[in-house]
C-alpha cells in the first residue's frame, strides 16, 4: 500500500467532508475515498406533517441554498397537486433563486476558492493556508485580495435582492404552493434594479477579470481533475408554464446530449452507513435506515447514480448541456463555466427584473388534495437538486431529498464505481505531500457543501464561570 494523505476536514467549505487519497512512489494519486461524516436525517421529520410544511422546513436544511430547497419543495408539491405556477410567479421565483445563484457563485470563487491560488494577508481569516505554488505577482495578489473584500459587499447586495422579493431573510417566506405571495411595490422594483446593476457590473468587470487572470496563470489546471466525464442537470429557471427552462434538463455522455427520465435515478448504499435495504431504490420509494460501522462502508452520503452511471453536476454541466460552454471538463473549466454562467444569469435577470410590475398576480389559492405523489427537480448553485414527496390522508408518508453534493462527493456504488470527486482526484501528482494543494483545488472546483446541519458554537475549552449569567433551576421553576 502506498502513502495515504488525508484532508480532514477539507477546509474552506460549508460543512464537513473528509478526503483520503493513496499515492504511488511518484506522488501520483492512485486511489481516493470521499467521506461525508454527518448524518442527515431531516426527511424523517417531515413524515406525518402537512405536505405543504416541507417548503419552510426543507429550507432549514442548508444555510447556503435555502432558496433552491424552497423551489424544489414547492415544485414537488405543485406537481402532486397537478398545478402549474403562472408566469408572474415564475418571474418572481426566478429573480429570488437567481439572486441566490449570483451570491453563491461569487462566494464560491472569492471566499472559498481564491486562496487556493492567491496568497492572502498574514492574518485571520486568511491563515493558515497552503502557501505553495502561488503564481500571481505581488500587485496582482493585492488586487485580488481587494476584490475578495469588495465581493463581500456585492454578496450582501445580491442577498438584499432576494430579501426584497421574499419577505424575510435568509429563509424565504413568499414562495409557497400556488405561486409567490409577495407582489412587489414600485420601491421594491427600483431597489432591486439598483442592486442588480451594481452586482452585474462587478460580475462583468471584476469577477470575470479575476477568473481570467487565474485561468491564465494556472492554465495547466485545464488538464487536471477531469474525473468521470459524464454530466447531468435537472434544468433550472422556468421560462414558461409548459416546463421549458433557461438551462435545459439533460445528460452529457461521450459527447452526446441525452434526456432525463427521473425513474432512472437510483441511490446505492453498499459503501454507505445505511442498511442494504435503503439502497438500490428510486427516491420516490427511498429509505434512510442508519447502520453506522457497517462493514466496508465509509460515508454517510449515499451513492446516487443515473441509469447506473456516475455523473458530475454543477455549473459546468449546465453550461455544456445548454451549449453555452465549449471547453472541456477540468478544475479550471469548472471555475470558468461558473463565472460565465454568473454573467449570463445576471444578464437574464435584467430582463426578468424589467418584467416586474406592481400589478402582478403571482398567487393562486390551492386546496390540499387527500393524497398525491410529486417530484420537484431544480438546480442549486452547485448542481441538480431533487425532492420526492408522497402523501396520503393529507399527511406526508415519505419525503426524500438528493442534494448535488450527494452526487459529486458520493462514495463508491454497488458496482464499485467511485463518485465524481473521487474519480477527479485519480491521476493528479502532488508536488509536496505535506501541502497537498492540488487536492484542495480539485475538491473546491466542485463547490461541495455538506453544511446541512448543526451550527452550535463549540468552544475549545470550558467557559469560565464569570461568563455564566444563569444556571438552570433543577426544579424547572423560575
Amino acid at each position, binding site marked *: 500500500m502506498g502513502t495515504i494523505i488525508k484532508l480532514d476536514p477539507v*477546509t*474552506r467549505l460549508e460543512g464537513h467532508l473528509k478526503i483520503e487519497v493513496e499515492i504511488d512512489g511518484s506522488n501520483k494519486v492512485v486511489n481516493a475515498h470521499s467521506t461525508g461524516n454527518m448524518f442527515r436525517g431531516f426527511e424523517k421529520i417531515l413524515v406525518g406533517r402537512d405536505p405543504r410544511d416541507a417548503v419552510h422546513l426543507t429550507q432549514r436544511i442548508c444555510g447556503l441554498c435555502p432558496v433552491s430547497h424552497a423551489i424544489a419543495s414547492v415544485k414537488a408539491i405543485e406537481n402532486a397537486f397537478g398545478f402549474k405556477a403562472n408566469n408572474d410567479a415564475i418571474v418572481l421565483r426566478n429573480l429570488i433563486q437567481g439572486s441566490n445563484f449570483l451570491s453563491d457563485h461569487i462566494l464560491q470563487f472569492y471566499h472559498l476558492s481564491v486562496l487556493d491560488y492567491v496568497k492572502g494577508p498574514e492574518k485571520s*481569516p486568511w491563515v493558515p493556508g497552503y502557501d505553495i505554488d502561488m503564481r500571481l505577482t505581488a500587485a496582482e495578489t493585492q488586487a485580488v485580495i481587494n476584490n475578495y473584500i469588495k465581493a463581500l459587499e456585492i454578496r450582501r447586495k445580491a442577498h438584499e435582492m432576494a430579501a426584497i422579493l421574499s419577505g424575510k431573510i435568509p429563509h424565504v417566506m413568499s414562495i409557497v404552493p400556488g405561486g409567490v405571495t409577495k407582489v412587489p411595490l414600485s420601491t421594491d422594483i427600483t431597489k432591486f434594479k439598483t442592486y442588480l446593476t451594481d452586482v452585474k457590473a462587478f460580475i462583468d468587470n471584476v469577477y470575470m477579470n479575476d477568473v481570467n487572470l487565474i485561468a491564465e496563470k494556472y492554465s495547466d489546471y485545464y488538464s487536471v481533475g477531469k474525473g468521470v466525464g459524464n454530466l447531468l442537470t435537472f434544468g433550472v429557471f422556468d421560462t414558461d408554464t409548459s416546463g421549458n427552462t433557461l438551462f435545459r434538463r439533460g445528460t452529457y455522455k461521450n459527447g452526446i446530449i441525452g434526456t432525463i427520465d427521473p425513474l432512472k435515478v437510483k441511490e446505492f448504499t453498499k459503501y454507505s452507513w445505511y442498511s442494504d435495504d435503503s439502497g438500490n431504490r428510486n427516491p420516490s420509494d427511498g429509505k434512510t435506515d442508519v447502520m453506522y460501522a457497517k462493514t466496508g462502508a465509509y460515508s454517510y452520503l449515499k451513492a446516487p447514480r443515473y441509469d447506473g452511471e456516475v455523473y458530475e453536476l454543477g455549473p459546468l454541466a449546465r453550461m455544456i448541456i445548454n451549449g453555452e460552454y465549449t471547453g472541456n471538463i477540468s478544475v479550471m473549466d469548472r471555475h470558468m463555466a461558473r463565472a460565465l454562467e454568473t454573467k449570463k444569469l445576471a444578464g437574464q435577470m435584467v430582463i426578468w427584473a424589467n418584467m416586474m410590475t406592481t400589478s402582478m398576480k403571482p398567487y393562486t389559492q390551492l386546496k390540499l388534495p387527500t393524497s398525491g405523489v410529486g417530484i420537484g427537480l431544480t438546480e442549486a448553485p452547485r448542481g441538480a437538486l431533487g425532492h420526492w414527496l408522497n402523501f396520503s390522508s393529507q399527511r406526508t408518508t415519505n419525503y426524500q431529498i438528493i442534494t448535488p453534493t450527494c452526487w459529486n462527493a458520493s462514495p463508491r456504488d454497488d458496482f464499485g464505481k467511485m463518485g465524481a470527486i473521487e474519480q477527479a482526484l485519480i491521476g493528479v501528482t502532488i508536488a509536496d505531500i505535506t501541502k497537498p494543494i492540488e487536492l484542495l483545488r480539485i475538491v473546491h472546483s466542485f463547490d461541495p457543501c455538506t453544511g446541512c446541519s448543526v451550527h452550535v458554537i463549540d468552544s475549545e475549552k470550558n467557559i469560565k464561570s464569570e461568563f455564566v449569567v444563569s444556571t438552570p433551576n433543577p426544579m424547572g421553576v423560575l
Partner: protein
Amino acid sequence: MKRAVLGIGNILLHDDGIGIHVINELEKEELVGVDLIDGGTAILDLLDIFINNDYIIIVDSLKGGHEPGTIYKLSAEDMDGYIKGNTSLHDVQILDIVKQAKYLGFCPQVTILGIEPEKIDYEIGLTDRLKNQLPQLIKIVKDELEEKEKCQV
C-alpha cells in the same frame, strides 16, 4: 443606536434551534427600535446584519462545558478566546462574519448570549430543560436591550 437580536441555529435539530425560538417569542412583543432576525443556519449570508446595526445580541446554543440550560454572556472578543484560531478555514462560524464586517470597516458591538444545549438531534422543538430556561433567556435578552437603550440617553 441601531440594535438587533440575531437568533441562529436549526429548528429541526432540537436544542440547536434555541436562537430561533427566542426570536419567535420576541416577535410577539412590542419591542421598539429593535430588529429581530431569524438567521437560521445561513451564517454566510448574515454579513449585512453586522453592517446595518451598532449593537447586536447573538442568541445561539453554545457548548461551554457546563450543565445543560446554563446561560452564558460573552462579548465577541471574549468568545474568540474560546475558539480555536482560524476556524474560518473550517466550518464558517458566526465570529468570522463579525471579522468580515470589520474588514469592511464596520465594528458593531456584539454580545453573545449562549445556552448550553441538552440534546441536538433530528427533532423539532426544544427539550423540556431548555423550554424551562426560555423565559429566563428572553428576560436576559430584554434586560440587555434596555440597558443599551439607557446608555444612549
